[in-house]
């Protein structure tokens, strides 16, 4: 199963397996990773699953959609060019080894 590493704002690293087709947000919630709230449950509506994509197969990431684009403009922590909503990142084999950093705040 492909793996993703989450780096907390305290620099603590947690690697988890994410089933193909599941979102990174769901996987993080399931693994009790602190720093992902996912309040809206994956409707790209709350901007509380914000992550910074640090490294990995970046070409395999899906494009930022128009709705995600609006939400990224409303994140609690600063938006950078690495910002994504983890509810919109669905796991594929090609994304195995992805590393994402969690922002200091989500709400």
């Amino acid at each position: 199963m492909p793996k993703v590493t989450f780096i907390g704002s305290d620099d603590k690293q947690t690697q988890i397996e994410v089933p193909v087709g599941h979102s990174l947000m769901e996987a993080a919630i399931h693994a009790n990773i602190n720093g992902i709230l996912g309040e809206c449950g994956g409707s790209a509506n709350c901007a509380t699953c914000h992550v910074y994509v640090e490294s990995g197969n970046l070409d395999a990431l899906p494009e930022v959609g128009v709705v995600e684009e609006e939400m990224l403009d409303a994140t609690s922590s600063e938006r950078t060019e690495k910002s994504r909503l983890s509810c919109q990142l669905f796991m594929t084999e090609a994304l195995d080894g992805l590393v994402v950093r969690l922002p200091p705040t989500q709400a």
Partner: protein
Amino acid sequence: MSSATRVTSDLDPFSPEFRADPYSAYEKLRSLGPIVWLEKYDIWAVSHHETIIPVLTDWETYSNAGGGGLANYFKEKPWRRPSIILEVDPPEHPKARAALTRTLSPKTLRAIRPRFEQDAAMFVDAVAGRGEIDAIPELVTPYPLKVFPDSVGMEADGRENLLTYGSMVFGSFGPVTPWYEELMSRVGPVQDWILAHCKREAMLPGGIGEMIYDAVDAGDLTEEEGGLLVRSFLSAGVDTTIDSIGLCLRALAEHPDQWALLREDPSLARAAFEEATRYDSSSQSLFRTTTREVDFAGTTIGKHEKIMCFLGSAGRDPARWENADTFDIRRRTVGQIGFGVGIHGCVGQMFARLEAEVFFQALAARIETLEPSGPSQLRLNPGLRGLSSLPLAITPRKH
């Protein structure tokens, strides 16, 4: 048509008996299997947390263009022009969704929170010393009916039209009954009022209605689409929150231990509302319509067939929730789907959460005891679950 091996039920999800106690009906439905044919309406029903989610999220197979309710737009003409946000699929959907998402974003909400706090305090203060109240007309209804149209940027006169129109929109999700026909006999003037109040010139400055027209001016939407999105605000923004807040208030009144927790720690207000949305959502069911023949857990579903997805049942599904029938405001509710899920998940859900959080914080700060003082009454709308009456005995908090 559908497979001969389908499981069939005579359950009527629009009957008064069902409305009075949907949760025991859901238990029975869940025991029948992943998908059940409801012969009274010739529709399918899904009632498990795990099976509802794929139906709600796979929009290519399970379309919203067939209409938000029981009526099948692939086969019959809708009563009003279909919603360009609820009753449409991609590629048209994201454009409207993005415009609404912008207007209802956390950024907007951070700015309007202080006004919500002021209004919630005002409405709670108005009843705190009254002893016995009917909380629905006297406390719950006035709050969304003020803060929501204030946020859109609507004039103060005539706002009761929002309640009637909301009843019509959600009433149309069910079957045509004498109740519905009587309601719709008044549709003309109400619809005229609503459409007039969706227009650009009706928007007061600084509201989210004006933000929709900013998107029109930026070339993101046509003028007509702007009006239809404001119509979506006016359709779905008031009744839904009145019902959700009312059901949460009833749950708290009926569970004194939970009310005590909230009163001791008002920061639990948001969690209490989230739990109430799992436990007793105002949105008990949503519809999808198949775009093709599809195999669903071994049952063949035909093209253009309606599937009723029971969110209310998902919230009580013991396969997903421990002690599913227990109202527990300290529960870890993440993943509850009372607001729907996927591209059509409630676009106003963060707005609703903020409204409710602020309301229950104000209540916890000002009210000591809160108990039912008589039986509550359910309202008669097939598309929404909510109360028309909630008699409460209350005492103010001693400071």
